[in-house]
């Protein structure tokens, strides 16, 4: 590593992420961020002070050895850096792209106290992409076969990372997935322009090459129940079914034609490729030159609104009941959305949807909000301003206000304990449920959270399952 003083390092500005032009990209589905070049990556790595006490690590839910991997990047040992990250994070190409870094690792970075923090996520992404492009995904050593079988339900980040660890421990692993495609939210929710599907596919292919068996079209609860899996020779089960139940606003007019849940809209476009209709068979409301409103302010809402813009919407609104500061989405997504011409109607809440005589959506009645006292979440509670309602003409609406838990597992496995919101109750250390040999993790336990938390839970469970299997 070149000798640079702390002061010199602090002088290097945060390196910009090369990206597709805002206007151009709002007309295509290609990835927005193009990724660092080797030069940019090394320069960014030099900004890291190699702190004796690297506090950045405290901000990462899986404690990636950030300081060490950045050191390797600065030295130009990108493959070494990739191995270093993978000691803790199975999916760096994904997390580097989608982690809310500004709330996690980068929030803690000391360089960020006075200036802009080290771009840990972008470096992580660079390193993972470099490894994939130059080496293919590396196949780790497998332990000798134990003869034990584990069933994993759901192929999202939680299920995939659990599968990766367990196959390496020598167990036979089958992943059951309800849909026809693997990857969970990574394929049906997060759009191509933010997370190219090839990256997810490469991760899944590498698990396949390690011997993980994937069974698509298997809705556990219907196709087989958990009890049946255990009777059929599975010694342990990991439930990673995500938070797949869309919440609606429960207001008048929500069943009008043209009103979607974000899950439906994004599934039609991402999974079923409706943006290529009629080459692909699944249609979606044709928003070309129309006005779209997306309700919510999280990553899902940003994904939906930016997708509608790419499908040709003339006006695309985010409608959110709090203010700019409270938008829960990643800062980068909000920034990108604004660049792409998305309009933000903040401090506004829908009262009802309005339709024409044929039942098609034509508008939404909104009421203006102001921020009052902080609520249980610590955020200031939005309260309606009396008589401030007005009608906004819209042609399509997408409700992106979060997901609850899908009830299928609960209905078909009575001896697992759930909380009143339908989340599975687990022991926090082992991820064990109330049913012997059955573990759970990811969004089904936490409620809708993040990729890295789901992945971390998968690894924690893998460790506990491995212990359980060696004891039993």
């Amino acid at each position: 590593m070149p000798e640079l003083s702390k002061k010199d390092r602090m002088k290097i500005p945060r390196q910009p992420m090369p990206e597709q032009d805002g206007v151009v990209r709002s007309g295509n589905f290609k990835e927005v961020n193009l990724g660092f070049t080797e030069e940019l990556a090394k320069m960014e790595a030099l900004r890291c002070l190699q702190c004796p006490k690297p506090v950045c690590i405290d901000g990462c839910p899986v404690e990636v050895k950030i300081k060490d991997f950045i050191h390797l990047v600065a030295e130009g040992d990108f493959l070494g850096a990739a191995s270093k990250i993978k000691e803790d994070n199975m999916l760096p190409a994904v997390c580097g792209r989608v982690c809310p870094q500004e709330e996690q690792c980068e929030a803690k970075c000391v360089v960020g106290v006075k200036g802009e923090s080290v771009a840990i996520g972008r470096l992580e992404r660079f390193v993972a992409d470099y490894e994939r492009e130059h080496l293919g995904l590396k196949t780790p050593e497998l332990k000798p076969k134990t003869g034990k079988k584990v069933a994993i339900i759901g192929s999202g980040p939680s299920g995939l990372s659990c599968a990766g660890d367990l196959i390496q421990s020598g167990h036979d692993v089958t992943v059951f997935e309800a849909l026809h495609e693997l990857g969970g939210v990574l394929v049906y929710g997060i759009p191509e322009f933010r997370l190219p599907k090839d990256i997810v596919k490469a991760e899944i292919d590498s698990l396949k090459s390690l011997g993980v068996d994937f069974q698509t079209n298997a809705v556990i609860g219907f196709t087989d129940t958990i009890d049946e899996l255990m009777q059929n020779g599975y010694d342990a089960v990991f439930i990673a079914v995500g938070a797949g139940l869309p919440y609606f606003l429960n207001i008048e007019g929500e069943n009008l034609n043209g009103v979607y849940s974000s899950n439906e809209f994004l599934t039609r476009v991402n999974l079923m490729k409706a943006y290529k209709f009629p080459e692909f068979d699944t249609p979606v409301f044709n928003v070309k030159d129309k006005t779209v409103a997306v309700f919510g302010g999280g990553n899902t809402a940003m994904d939906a609104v930016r997708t509608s813009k790419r499908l040709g919407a003339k006006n695309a609104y985010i409608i959110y009941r709090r203010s700019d500061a409270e938008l829960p989405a990643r800062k980068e997504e909000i920034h990108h959305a604004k660049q792409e011409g998305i309009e933000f109607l903040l401090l506004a809440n829908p009262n009802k949807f309005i339709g024409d005589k044929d039942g098609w959506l034509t508008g939404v009645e909104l009421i203006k909000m102001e921020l009052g006292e902080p609520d249980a979440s610590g955020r200031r509670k939005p309260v309606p301003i009396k008589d401030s309602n007005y009608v906004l003409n819209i042609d399509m609406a997408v409700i992106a206000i979060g997901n609850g838990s899908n009830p299928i597992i609960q209905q078909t496995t009575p001896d697992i304990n759930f909380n009143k919101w339908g989340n599975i109750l687990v022991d926090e250390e082992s991820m064990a449920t109330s049913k012997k040999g059955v573990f759970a993790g990811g969004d089904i336990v936490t409620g809708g959270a993040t990729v890295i938390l789901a992945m971390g839970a998968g690894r924690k469970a893998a460790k506990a399952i491995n212990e359980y299997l060696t004891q039993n």
Partner: protein
Amino acid sequence: MYKIVNAEFLAENIKRFVIEAPKIAAKRKAGQFVIIRLNDGGERIPLTIADSETANGTITIIVQGIGKTTKELNSLNTGDFILDVVGPLGKASHIEKFGTAVSIGGGVGTAIAYPTAVALKQAGNHTISIIGGRTRELVILENELKQVCDEVYPTTDDGSYGFHGFVTQKLKQLIDNGTRIDFVLAIGPIPMMKAVAETTRPYGIKTVVSLNPVMVDGTGMCGGCRATVDNKTVFVCVDGPEFDAHLVDFATLERRNRTYKESEQEALHEHLCHFDKAFEQGLKLNN
């Protein structure tokens, strides 16, 4: 890949497929459905499991060709494959000994009602089937139903066969003639189900319909299949597909099913342009 072990037309545009799907065959109950996807790029569409044979590991579906996917499916033959078949989905029919149970099928709805009619008979009901079609050729499964039901009444709109008139008129006739009816199941086009609901409502006869909204995943994940029942929103794929006919908001269902009408016609047109002649010919040969 799921192999089609037998395929034959039952009527113009209505085809029966026997498909190898051992796991689904072993588990399915009357009233449940599968979602299929024919090929890469294909749409996911729901189809009721009409029958199954555990020994052979097969399920039967009966399909009416109305749009791109169903027409493409109906061009497949014995020995062909379907890429994805997932199920059994949805809640099984609620079956009990009601007394006298009438199952009413309109068009391909007869196929959807068939498994439940069988189950109603097995539960000890006196079972009556009314099966309607526009014309004689469109009355399906009469022989199959005769083997399980106590009474079977075909009806045709044009009077070319059986009772001349709508299924609801036949139902009304039975009621007026003093037949004590304890339970009605009606499956078919939305206007038909609505008419049955209105026929039985004044008599307070428990009536169930099977709803057919547009679906995507079939697991409760997307909410696209939502319908209004008893003024509440339900997800038909997981809460149904069967609901109390007297509580269903049929107008909303009918309207929501029109969401993709224009797009679907575009897709079908595209499809016919591509596969045009060979495909149409295949249909004729099969008939």
